[in-house]
C-alpha cells in the first residue's frame, strides 16, 4: 500500500476558445514523487474526463506541458507536488498566450515572435560541400554552452512582464535563439536578425532585466544574460558581420 497524501487542486477551466472561465476544485490522493502532470492525469481519468491539457514526453524534454503552477510557469511533468509545499495546488494556463481550452494555450504569439528572428540556419555558403565542424572549445562552442537547450515551452514568454505589456516584444526565447544564430559561424542572415533585435518596440531594448524568464526557464538558461549580451553587441554590431568575411568563415 502506497503512502498517499491528499491534495486539493484548483484548476482553471475554460470552454473552447477561452470562454466561460471558472475554477474547479479536485481532491487527489498522490504518492510521494508524483508530479502535477500525474495529478492532472488522475483527475482526467477518475473525476472529469473533459479536463484538457497538453503533454507528450513526460520527462521534461518536449516542453508541451508548461503551465502555471502556484503562480509560476513550470513544466507539469517536472514539478513534484510535494516540493510545492502547499496542500492546495493552483494550476492555470500560461499567461500572455490565448487560452484554447482549460490548460491548453495557443503558442501562435510565441512562434510568430520566434519566426521574426529567422530561427533556422541560413548558411553563409549554401553550396559548400565542406562539412562544418563546430568544436565545443571554439568561441561559438563556449558561448553557446547552456544557451542551446531551449524547449520552446513558452514558460519564459509567459513569465515575461514586458511581453505582458507589449505585444510586439520578441520575448526571451526568440532573442536567445537569435543570439545563437548570430554567434554561429555557419550562419549568414545577420542583417535581418539585427534589424528585428534592434527594433524599437519589439527588440532587445524593451527588456527591463526583470529576470522572470531566468526564474521560469525549466532548463535554467540565462536568458537575461543573452539579452544583455545582445544589447551590448548591438552598440558594436561589427563582430557579427566579421564572420561573413571569407577568412573568418574558414575558422569554423
Amino acid at each position, binding site marked *: 500500500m502506497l503512502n498517499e497524501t491528499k491534495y486539493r487542486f484548483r484548476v482553471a477551466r475554460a470552454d473552447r476558445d477561452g470562454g466561460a472561465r471558472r475554477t474547479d476544485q479536485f481532491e487527489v490522493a498522490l504518492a510521494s514523487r508524483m508530479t502535477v502532470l500525474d495529478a492532472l492525469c488522475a483527475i482526467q481519468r477518475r473525476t472529469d474526463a473533459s479536463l484538457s491539457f497538453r503533454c507528450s514526453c513526460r520527462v521534461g524534454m518536449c516542453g508541451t506541458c508548461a503551465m502555471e503552477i502556484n*503562480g*509560476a510557469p513550470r513544466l507539469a511533468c517536472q514539478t513534484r507536488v510535494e516540493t510545492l*509545499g*502547499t496542500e492546495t495546488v493552483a494550476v492555470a494556463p500560461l499567461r500572455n498566450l490565448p487560452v484554447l481550452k482549460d490548460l491548453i494555450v495557443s503558442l501562435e504569439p510565441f512562434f510568430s515572435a520566434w519566426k521574426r528572428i529567422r530561427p533556422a540556419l541560413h548558411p553563409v555558403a549554401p553550396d559548400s560541400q565542406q562539412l562544418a565542424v563546430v568544436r565545443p572549445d571554439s568561441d561559438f562552442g563556449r558561448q553557446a554552452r547552456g544557451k542551446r537547450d531551449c524547449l520552446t515551452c513558452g514558460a519564459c514568454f509567459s513569465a515575461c512582464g514586458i511581453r505582458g505589456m507589449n505585444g510586439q516584444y520578441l520575448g526571451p526565447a526568440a532573442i536567445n535563439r537569435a543570439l545563437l544564430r548570430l554567434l554561429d559561424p555557419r550562419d549568414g542572415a545577420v542583417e535581418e536578425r539585427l534589424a528585428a533585435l534592434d527594433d524599437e518596440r519589439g527588440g532587445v531594448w524593451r527588456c527591463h532585466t526583470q*529576470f*522572470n524568464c531566468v526564474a521560469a526557464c525549466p532548463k535554467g538558461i540565462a536568458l537575461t*544574460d543573452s539579452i544583455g549580451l545582445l*544589447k551590448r553587441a548591438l552598440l558594436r554590431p561589427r563582430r557579427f558581420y566579421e564572420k561573413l568575411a571569407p577568412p573568418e568563415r574558414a575558422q569554423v
Partner: protein
Amino acid sequence: MKSLHLQSARKYSGAYSGMLAWWIQRATGLLLLGYLFLHVTTIHELSRGSAAFDAALLRFRSPFFKLLEIALLGTVILHALNGVRITLVDLGIGHSRERRLFWALAFGVGGALFLAGAIPIVLFAILKI
C-alpha cells in the same frame, strides 16, 4: 504546509526577486517624484520673500516630517542602489549572482546606509538628545 497565498507572496523573495526589484524601482521613482514636487513648491516660496520661505520651512521641523525624512532616506537608498544594480546587470556584471546582488544591495549596503542616516535623525532631530 504553507498556504497558497503565502507561497505566492514568497515567490518574489526567491527566484522572482528581479521582478520585486522592478516594482521597487517604479514605486520609489513615483515617491521621489512626489518629493521633488514638494521640494520645488517649497523653494518656490523664496519668490514670495524670506518670511514666506521661513514659514514653509517651519512645517518640516515637526517630528512627523522627521519621520517622513527617514522614509525619504530609505526611498532614495533603495532607488539609488537598485539603479547601481541595473547598471551592473546592463554591463554584464553579476548576471549569475543577480539575486544575491539584489539582497546584498537592498539589505546589506542599503540597510547599513539607512541605519547610518536614520539613527542620527531619530536621536538628534526627534528625541533631541
